[in-house]
C-alpha cells in the first residue's frame, strides 16, 4: 500500500472527480472532495517523512514499466515539500470555501465545482510528482483546463472573460513548454527528466538544446506569471470565486515555479543554465521589475482582490529573484517564500472572500467602517499585511532575510536596498485598506455589516497563526528548504 502511494495520490483524486461528476449533490461532493484532499495531504506528508527519514528518493514505475521508457513518479525532498503545500492548501480551501461557494456559484453547478476542484488538485499534484517531461505537460493541462472552468464559474460576467484570457495565455505557455520538450526529445530520444539531464550533458551547446530551453523557460514563465507575462493573472484572480482565488493564488503559480526550478537546476544543470547562460541576469531584471511594477500597480487598485493579485505578481518576483541569486541562501529564500507566500496570500484571499460575502463587493470604498463591524477579519488583514511587509516575527521576514543574505553573498548591496524599498510599497497598499476599514466611518445608509461565517474566519486565522508560528519556528520550512536546495544544487554532479 505504502509503495503504491505515489500512484494513489494521483489516481484517487482523478477517480473521485469522476464520481463527483456523476453524483453532483453538493453535500456529498464536498465530503468526497474533503476526504480525498485530506487523504492526499496525509499521503504527501507520509512520503515527505519517508524521504526525510531514509534520505532516499521515492521512485515509482507507473504500470511497472521501467524508466526511461516508462513514466516514473519521483518524490524527492523538493517534490515532497511542494506536494505537502498543495494538498494542505487544497484541504484548507475546501473547509474554508463551502459557504462562499454556495453563495458565489449557481446552485446547479456546485457538484461540478468540486469535480473541477479535484481535477485541478490532481493536475497540480501530478506536475510535481512526475519525473517525465511529457507527463508534466499532460498534468499541466489537466490542472489548467479545470482551473479555467473554476474561474469561469464566477457569477460576474467578467469572470468568463478573464477565464478566456487565461485560457489563451495559459495554452500558449503550455504549448511553448511542450515545443521545448519536443526539441529536447528530438535530440536525446528520452522524456524522463533524470535521463534527459544525463543525455543532455554533451549536447547542451547545440542550437536544439538551447532553443528547447528557451521555449521551456518562456512557456513556464507564462504559467508562473513572471513579469511581463503576468497579464492574465490580475483578472483571473480578481473575478474568480473567492475560494478559487485562494486556491489558485496559493498553488498554481507555485507549482510552475517548482517545474522551472527542476528544469534550470536538474535537467539543464546549474553548471549550464546558471553559469553559462544569461538566464539568471534576465530573471533577476524581470523579478525586480515584477516586484516594483506589481507593487506600484497594486497601489492604485480600487478592487482589493485585484490589488492582492498585483501584489502576487510582485511576490512571484521575490521567489524568482531567489532563483536568480543562484546561491544556496537565495534559493532557500525562494523555496521558503513559495510556502510562506502560499500561506499568507491564501489567508488574505480567504479574508477577502469573507469581505465579499458580507459587504457584497470587494471595492475599497465600500469597506469603510469594516474594522468595527468585522474585527476578526480586519485584524486578520492587518496581521497578513505585516507578513507581506516582512515584519519580523512573521513568515514574510524569514523569506526576505534569506533573500537579502543571498544578495549580500553575491555582493549585491543594491538588491537589499531595493528589497527594503519594495517592502515600503507593500506597507502603503496594505495600509490603504486598513485605513479605510478602521478610520472611515460607515455611511449611515449602507447595509450593516457582520462578521463572516465561522468556517471562513477560522480557516483564515489558522493560516494567519501559521504565518506567525512559522515566522518563529522555521524548522519545517527552512529545514526542508535547505535540504531541498542541496538536492537541487547537488543534483548537478
Amino acid at each position, binding site marked *: 500500500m505504502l509503495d503504491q502511494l505515489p500512484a494513489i495520490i494521483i489516481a484517487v483524486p482523478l477517480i473521485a472527480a469522476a464520481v463527483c461528476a456523476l453524483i453532483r449533490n453538493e453535500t456529498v461532493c464536498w465530503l468526497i472532495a474533503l476526504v480525498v484532499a485530506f487523504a492526499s495531504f496525509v499521503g504527501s506528508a507520509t512520503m515527505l517523512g519517508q524521504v526525510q527519514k531514509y534520505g532516499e528518493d521515492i521512485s515509482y514505475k507507473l504500470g511497472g514499466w521501467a524508466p526511461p521508457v516508462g513514466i516514473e513518479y519521483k518524490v524527492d525532498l523538493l517534490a515532497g515539500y511542494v506536494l505537502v503545500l498543495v494538498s494542505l492548501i487544497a484541504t484548507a480551501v475546501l473547509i474554508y470555501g463551502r459557504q462562499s461557494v454556495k453563495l458565489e456559484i449557481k446552485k446547479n453547478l456546485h457538484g461540478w465545482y468540486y469535480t473541477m476542484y479535484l481535477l485541478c488538485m490532481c493536475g497540480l499534484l501530478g506536475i510535481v510528482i512526475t519525473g517525465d517531461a511529457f507527463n508534466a505537460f499532460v498534468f499541466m493541462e489537466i490542472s489548467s483546463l479545470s482551473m479555467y472552468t473554476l474561474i469561469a464559474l464566477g457569477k460576474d460576467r467578467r469572470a468568463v*472573460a478573464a477565464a478566456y484570457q487565461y*485560457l489563451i495565455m495559459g495554452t500558449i505557455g503550455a504549448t511553448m513548454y*511542450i515545443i521545448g520538450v519536443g526539441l529536447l526529445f528530438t535530440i536525446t530520444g528520452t522524456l524522463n527528466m533524470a535521463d534527459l539531464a544525463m543525455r543532455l550533458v554533451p549536447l547542451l551547446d547545440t542550437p536544439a538544446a538551447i532553443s528547447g530551453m528557451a521555449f521551456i523557460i518562456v512557456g513556464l514563465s507564462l504559467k508562473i506569471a513572471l513579469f511581463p507575462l503576468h497579464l492574465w493573472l490580475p483578472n483571473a484572480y*480578481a473575478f474568480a470565486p473567492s475560494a478559487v482565488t485562494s486556491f489558485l493564488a496559493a498553488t498554481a503559480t507555485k507549482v510552475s515555479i517548482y517545474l522551472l526550478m527542476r528544469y534550470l537546476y536538474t535537467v539543464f544543470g546549474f553548471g549550464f543554465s546558471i553559469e553559462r547562460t544569461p538566464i539568471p541576469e534576465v530573471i533577476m531584471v524581470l523579478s525586480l521589475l515584477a516586484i516594483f511594477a506589481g507593487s506600484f500597480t497594486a497601489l492604485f487598485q480600487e478592487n482589493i482582490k485585484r490589488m492582492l493579485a498585483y501584489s502576487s505578481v510582485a511576490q512571484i518576483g521575490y521567489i524568482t529573484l531567489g532563483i536568480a541569486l543562484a546561491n544556496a541562501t537565495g534559493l532557500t529564500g525562494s523555496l521558503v517564500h513559495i510556502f510562506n507566500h502560499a500561506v499568507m496570500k491564501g489567508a488574505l484571499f480567504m479574508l477577502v472572500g469573507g469581505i465579499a460575502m458580507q459587504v457584497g463587493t470587494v471595492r475599497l470604498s465600500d469597506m469603510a467602517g469594516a474594522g468595527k463591524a468585522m474585527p476578526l477579519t480586519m485584524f486578520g488583514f492587518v496581521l497578513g499585511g505585516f507578513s507581506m511587509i516582512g515584519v519580523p516575527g512573521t513568515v514574510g521576514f524569514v523569506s526576505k532575510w534569506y533573500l537579502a543574505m543571498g544578495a549580500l553573498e553575491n555582493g549585491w548591496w543594491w538588491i537589499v536596498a531595493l528589497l527594503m524599498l519594495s517592502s515600503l510599497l507593500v506597507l502603503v497598499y496594505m495600509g490603504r485598506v486598513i485605513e479605510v476599514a478602521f478610520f472611515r466611518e460607515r455611511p449611515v445608509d449602507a447595509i450593516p455589516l457582520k462578521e463572516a461565517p465561522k468556517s471562513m474566519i477560522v480557516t483564515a486565522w489558522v493560516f494567519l497563526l501559521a504565518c506567525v508560528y512559522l515566522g518563529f519556528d522555521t524548522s519545517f520550512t527552512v529545514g526542508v528548504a535547505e535540504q531541498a536546495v542541496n538536492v537541487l544544487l547537488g543534483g548537478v554532479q
Partner: protein
Amino acid sequence: MEGLNELAFVLGGVNHWITVFLIMAGLYIIVSRSNMIKKLVGLSIFQTSVYLLYVSPGKIIGGTAPIISDDFTVYSNPLPHVLILTAIVVGVATLALGLALVIRINEAYGSIEEDDVYSGEDWN
C-alpha cells in the same frame, strides 16, 4: 556545391520549416485577431505545430510500425505517435472549453469581439 548545401538545408528540414510556419501563423492569428473564435483557431494551429514537431522526426523512410517479425527490420519510433495522441486530446479539450467560454461570453456581452468585451468593461 555551396548552393546545393543550402538546398539540402532547406529541404532536409522541411518538416521543421512547416513547424515554424505553423507556430508563427498560429501566434500571429492569436495576436492580431479580435474575434474570439478566430483566436481559438489560431491557438489550434499553434498547437498543431507541436504534433508535427513530434511525429515527423520519428518517421524513418521505409520504416514500419514496430512489429516483431523477420520481414521488417526498420521501425519508426512509436512513442511520438502515442504522445501526440495525448496532445491531440488535450488540444481538443482546450478548444472545446475555449468555445464554451466564447458562447458564455456571447451570452453575457452580446459580442465575441475582444475590443467590445474588454474595452467596454470596468476592470477595477
